[in-house]
């Protein structure tokens, strides 16, 4: 069986803004809520798919410089936006597909996460929206 080495180096945009250079961790999880449909006579629980509720969690370096992290996110709290992520910065293709969450919601934004001698990093989570993937 062939194996491949994959170095994580994704390209991340939030509301069309390229924040790759401020992001150190990204975790996109596609979630389709499970609705239990177990009925009498069954010997195991069974489920059907409900609404989609995917999430994208990003760990970012906080920067208050012009057009950086804070400027991008400050006006997005409590609103919906579109985020994209793809495995590498190379052109979009079948082996480098771009995933998009359109209309996802940003509920919270940590403003300061300060510790002595450490860089200020924040974790933000976009929830919901319509998931799509493009290969070109």
């Amino acid at each position, binding site marked *: 069986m062939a194996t491949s080495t994959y170095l994580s180096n994704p390209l991340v945009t939030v*509301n*069309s*803004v*390229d*924040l790759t250079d401020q992001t150190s961790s990204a975790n996109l999880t596609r979630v389709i809520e499970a609705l239990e449909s177990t009925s009498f006579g069954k010997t195991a629980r069974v489920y059907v798919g409900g609404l989609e509720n995917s999430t994208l969690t990003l760990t970012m370096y906080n920067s208050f410089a*012009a*057009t*950086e992290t804070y*400027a*991008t996110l*400050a*006006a*997005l709290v409590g*609103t*919906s*936006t*579109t985020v994209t992520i793809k495995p590498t910065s190379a052109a979009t293709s079948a082996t480098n597909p771009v995933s998009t969450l*359109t*209309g996802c919601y940003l509920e919270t934004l940590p403003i300061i996460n300060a510790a002595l001698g450490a860089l200020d990093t924040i974790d933000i989570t976009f929830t919901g*929206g319509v998931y799509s993937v493009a290969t070109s």
Partner: protein
Amino acid sequence: MTYTIASSKLGVIGEPFIPADGINVAALLSGGFIVEQSTPKPKKPAKTSTDTNEEI
């Protein structure tokens, strides 16, 4: 209303910005990523004087 890119984090500065589906334009404006470009109004036609005196 048209928009122009003002930050390299969004694209080439000075190029027009066409927001894709779901993009929060207000947030981009407040963050200084784009600037609003007002559409030029069409020129009014030159006024022409109309002679209303009819010659009899």
